[in-house]
């Protein structure tokens, strides 16, 4: 009707269109439904469009029913609680979505616009309502709502995944990783059960780490697919039944995600999720969780293993027999770092050089973990082998410089080495980059031995001269060798810390030597965990006369 009619045929049809556009026809066959109601809501007129859409006959509606009578129950409540009050208060409402129940019981989503007819005295005479088919809009809205739901879900997943990844990064043991994954399932994927199956130690079966009883399995369902890095969605099979029975769940879906590191599957994350939890998005998320957990598991395993080995190695290489001689009292203390992975290369040693002289050593190999522990072992043996009767400290250090050229991990190790003559208390010593030994003399203040200093091992840069110094201990004196863990504080310079250690040694000078190293370490460090290894070797020289035996049982405290 907006186009200008052209030609005689067009003119005729235009004329016909105008004729058909009578008010009556416009009402009956308008492109929208049309309802007129009395003040009490009963329908007074209903147009053909509405009847066609809904399948009602005119007689079924006019004078018999109200709009609300053909609404779905939910829409009816909405009509009574929102639509009708709004119409009263505003005189009109626009674009309210409702569901009309058709004659055949199906629903027609509609949009309603309505206007009240009000008499001059303000009384309501009736209501006119136009009805638009909103099927398409409804579909679109459903899609919008679904899209919004998916977006909210995705946001929640990303947040959850971030949390899990952060927790995995902080997990340092296999147990930690399994614990993280046991809580990740419920939190991120809404799983009811979540845990990790790892291959059993005897190469058969699968052990379970997760909530509930021990859910160990002989066979993991879909083990071949898991080995290929694929998620197993538990679509049946005897293995699945066994797994479900083990977990004690009879509804929901069993999902297994491979814990993948590189091209190896280290285990499986097992989840029981609601039936709706197996959409492609869920599975993608699950795969990501599996690979994150796999990598974390790989790291944790390696670190568990290294930590175990390092601790064992370190412990095995510390001396078990210190010289037993009536002319000498020895007390030693070794504190490994709290975190097993932080095991360092500190060591102490004391051994007889000849019948009257004893060698005292405290050293520190740079670095931590397995390498440091191994290097410490080599260096400790080297010190024992190279300390000959006539070498003395400086020559020993030169020999060690040569030695560490072939042992890179031992380079830049530091070392305090002293030889004490038990007959007269004469002491010859050298320090390769190591804190100075402390001498506690009765009636005098504690003195650091600052002589005989040179650089750490292997750091001589061609100048193969090591120095040494000597002093004489008075009878009743004590000598302390220690590693830097005992005197390194972030909040104080090194010399203050050395002075502080000296004061502690003095405070405990009256105490018997046996066990004093532990007491002093406690006093300096507190009895809590330490972040670094600590070694302390305290020897007392009473100044008596007697003989030295080299391999008697330990008298360490």
């Amino acid at each position, binding site marked *: 009707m907006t186009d200008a009619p052209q030609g005689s045929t067009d003119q005729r049809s235009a004329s016909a269109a105008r004729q058909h556009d009578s008010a009556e026809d416009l009402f009956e066959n308008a492109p929208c439904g049309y309802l007129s109601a009395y003040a*009490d*809501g009963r329908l007074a007129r209903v147009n053909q469009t509405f009847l066609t859409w809904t399948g009602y006959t005119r007689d079924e509606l006019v004078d018999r029913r109200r709009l*609300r009578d053909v609404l*779905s*129950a*939910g*829409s*009816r*409540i*909405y009509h*009574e*609680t*929102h639509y*009708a*009050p*709004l119409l*009263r*208060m*505003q005189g009109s*409402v*626009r*674009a*309210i*979505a*409702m*569901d009309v129940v058709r004659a055949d019981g199906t629903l027609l*989503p509609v949009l309603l616009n309505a206007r009240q007819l009000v008499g001059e005295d303000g009384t*309501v005479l009736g209501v006119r309502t136009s009805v638009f088919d909103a099927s398409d809009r*409804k579909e679109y*809205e459903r899609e*919008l*709502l679904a899209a919004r739901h998916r977006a909210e879900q995705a946001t929640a997943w990303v947040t959850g995944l971030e949390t899990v990844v952060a927790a995995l990064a902080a997990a340092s043991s296999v147990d930690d990783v399994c614990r993280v994954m046991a809580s990740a399932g419920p939190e991120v994927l809404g799983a009811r059960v979540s845990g990790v199956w790892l291959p059993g130690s005897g190469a058969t079966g699968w052990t379970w780490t997760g909530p509930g009883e021990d859910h160990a399995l002989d066979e993991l369902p879909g083990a071949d697919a898991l080995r290929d890095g694929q998620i197993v969605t538990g679509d049946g099979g005897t293995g699945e039944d066994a797994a479900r029975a083990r977990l004690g769940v009879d509804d929901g879906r069993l999902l297994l995600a491979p814990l993948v590191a590189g091209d190896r599957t280290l285990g499986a994350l097992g989840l029981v999720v609601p039936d709706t939890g197996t959409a492609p998005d869920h599975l993608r998320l699950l795969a990501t969780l599996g690979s994150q957990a796999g990598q974390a598991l790989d790291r944790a395993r390696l670190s568990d293993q290294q930590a175990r080995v390092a601790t064992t190695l370190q412990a095995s290489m510390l001396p078990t027999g210190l010289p037993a001689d009536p002319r000498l009292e020895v007390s030693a203390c070794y504190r490994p770092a709290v975190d097993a992975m932080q095991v360092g290369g500190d060591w102490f040693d004391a051994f007889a050089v000849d019948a009257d002289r004893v060698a005292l050593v405290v050293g520190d190999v740079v670095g931590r973990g397995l390498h440091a522990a191994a290097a410490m072992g080599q260096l400790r043996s080297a010190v024992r082998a190279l300390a000959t009767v006539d070498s003395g400290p400086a020559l020993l250090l030169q020999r060690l410089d040569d030695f560490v050229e072939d042992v890179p991990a031992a380079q830049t190790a530091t070392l305090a080495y002293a030889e004490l003559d038990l007959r007269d208390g004469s002491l010859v010593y050298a320090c390769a980059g190591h804190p100075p030994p402390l001498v506690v003399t009765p009636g005098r203040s504690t003195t650091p031995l600052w002589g005989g200093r040179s650089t750490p091992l292997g750091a001589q840069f061609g100048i193969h001269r090591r120095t040494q110094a000597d002093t004489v201990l008075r009878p009743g004196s004590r000598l302390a060798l220690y590693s830097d863990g005992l005197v390194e504080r972030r909040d104080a310079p090194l010399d203050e810390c050395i002075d502080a250690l000296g004061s502690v040694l003095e405070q405990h000078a009256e105490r018997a030597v046996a066990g004093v190293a532990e007491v002093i370490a406690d006093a300096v460090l507190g009895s809590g965990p330490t972040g670094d290894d600590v070694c302390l070797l305290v020897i007392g020289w009473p100044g008596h006369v007697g003989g030295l035996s080299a391999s008697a049982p330990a008298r360490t405290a």
Partner: protein
Amino acid sequence: MVDVLQRNNVTVSGVPDGPALVLAHGFGCDQNMWRYVAPAFEATHRVVRFDHVGAGGSALSAYDVDRHATLGGYADDVVEILAALDLTDSVFVGHSVSATIGVLAAARAPDRIGRLVLVGPSPRYIDDEMYTGGFTQADIDGLLESLDSNYLGWSSAMAPVIMGNPDRPELGSELTNSFCRTDPEIARRFARVTFTSDNRADLAGVSVPTLVLQCSDDVIAPETVGRYVHEHIAGSTFVMLDATGHCPNLSAPAETVAAISSFLAPQPA
């Protein structure tokens, strides 16, 4: 300290030292529901209107998912309003779900509520074996879907304008359906607590004079439900209105006012 009067957008009109008449709106709208009823009492009463938290001009931030998960939480709000205004022996007129909220509030603060007017009350909307509330769980789910469809056009950006100026509807007049808007999430929750609560057992605890106003042909609170309420509140008065639908306060304010006035009038000895 919560400003209760601000929280519930409390408006007070009428005679400052007159007897208090509290008008409480039901699910779906706000205190505007009383616009045709309130003026009739302003010459004789101190008329108090308010919006439940989440509705009209209330403070949306005061909505507490736990507190407002039960009608008891709304009753606590009412008691706090009455206390803030220091009302005693007031007439509490509750429409729809607020009728139930009034029953709970009267039990909590017997000194503050001296009479109850229950307009279209229903203590339980969902049918069970021995009781016909008029709805099934599926019907309530359908309502929640209706709420979702109709709130797609709700814009949180417009909320402050609408919420902040309930007394100046012209500010919202360019908006479609500017009354009765509320945050969709709160509306859903309020719908759920309204239509799934069961407060039948609380009716027996009512000890104040009570008027039950029942509309003809009310699909939300059918006559059988109104009579159930009447029968379970000892000594209550039942009045059947000619008004149809669920909102006589809007569709038949004169008849509603007359029924309440008659209930409040001193009874002949």
